[in-house]
């Protein structure tokens, strides 16, 4: 393995990161014996694999992701859901009605309609078409509230260590916050309190890397 870039190096699409026997991680591509970057980002070399932490990226659905979606279309066998990805996800009616689902008896519109907000999980990434979704009937999957968008790579920052920032915001504002890994956040609460959460989101979007971000956000929320 020949490393042409090291951990922390800035790369753009097309930059050769390594050559030889090395595994291509996320946001990289193997071309011949070279590993190239496919996005703007920062190199990470770990063991025998190289990857790129993208600095700008749209949401890329992965199996197991828990996402917030908005119903875009209803048909006889399920719902198409906008999950902020390249293509809509599909939630089969069986996921909601169970195995006994019968299109002649059950009407998907009786449960979910266009513009309803749901919390779901990506069950599978299909080779053809958008991702397959599923919901947890036990948890309750229909959400209400105001929708916000955050760059997906900054979601982890908004959640904080073990959910510290989100929990603190919920405590301070009394709002219920649901965070999707796809960058969609639903905030349910009084409008004035929701605006405080919106300010916090703005801060995370603009300054995700500063130290003491949690404290600064709490100060802003309390000070308002």
């Amino acid at each position, binding site marked *: 393995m020949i490393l042409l870039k090291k951990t922390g190096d800035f790369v753009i699409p097309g930059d050769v990161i390594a050559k030889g026997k090395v595994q291509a991680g996320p946001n990289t591509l193997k071309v011949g014996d070279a590993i190239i970057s496919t996005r703007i980002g920062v190199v990470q070399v770990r063991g025998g694999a190289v990857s790129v932490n993208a600095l700008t990226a749209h949401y890329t659905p992965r199996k197991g992701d828990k996402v917030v979606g908005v119903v875009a279309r209803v048909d006889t066998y399920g719902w198409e859901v906008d999950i902020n990805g390249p293509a809509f996800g599909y939630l089969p009616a069986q996921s909601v009605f169970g195995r006994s689902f019968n299109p002649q008896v059950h009407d998907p519109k009786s449960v979910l309609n266009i513009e309803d907000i749901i919390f779901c999980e990506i069950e599978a990434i299909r080779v053809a*078409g958008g991702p397959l979704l599923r919901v947890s009937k036990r948890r309750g999957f229909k959400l209400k509230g105001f929708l916000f968008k955050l760059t997906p790579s900054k979601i982890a920052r908004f959640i904080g260590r073990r959910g510290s920032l989100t929990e603190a915001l919920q405590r301070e504002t009394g709002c219920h916050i649901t965070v999707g890994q796809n960058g969609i956040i639903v905030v349910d609460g009084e409008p004035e309190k929701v605006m405080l959460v919106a300010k916090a989101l703005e801060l995370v979007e603009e300054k995700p890397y500063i130290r003491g971000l949690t404290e600064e956000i709490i100060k802003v929320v309390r000070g308002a």
Partner: protein
Amino acid sequence: MAFKRVDGRGPEDLRPIEFRVGVLENADGSAEVRWGKNWIIVAVYGPHEHYPRHEALIDRGILRCRYHMNPYSTMERKPPQPSRREIELSKVIGEALEPAIMLENYPMSSIDVYIEVLQADGGTRVAGISAASLALADAGIFMRDLVAACTAGKVEGNIVLDLCDEEDKTGQADLPVAIMPNLNKITLLQMDGMLTLEEFETALNLAIKGAKKVYELQQKVLRETYFKYGGESKR
């Protein structure tokens, strides 16, 4: 009498070029280029669900590219509706960008690229391609490589780089070329006019050399925009 270009440049000199990325807040990715007197803005939207649905491809995405010149971007007013030239350039620019984009990652989706020429002075397609490549990278689209482009041509019997509008109109040939610099592949090669085989090879090599200089500027602007604060993203 020694050959002199209309603007005083040497035969292998590029016009001053300035790129900027992230200029449009509403677009998923954007870039602006000032290339000599050319002034072009590019917006990228997507990837998103493709409409009309029946045209979506189940195994790959679709790249839709629109090149448009504003009515007063040229010396004489141009009608706002797409001309035959704009329709051709939209197709040609899309085909120049497509090999660089990993469309197989975007089934059922499309990526829209809008190239708006606000001021034109020759070489707008190569400036548009270079800026569009930056806008696509700015949008986080998976790409195999950036695309850099430049023209070369024949003016008063001399092979020169980066023709301006006057040289394009009065010259004998114009050769726009676009390349993927790291993969060493040509994605656009057009010719207008007449060149001998030797002249063509000289012009092609010169255009590729010019495109590589454009690539250096593309790298520089991305580094400055995304890595201004010692590794932290400014965006």
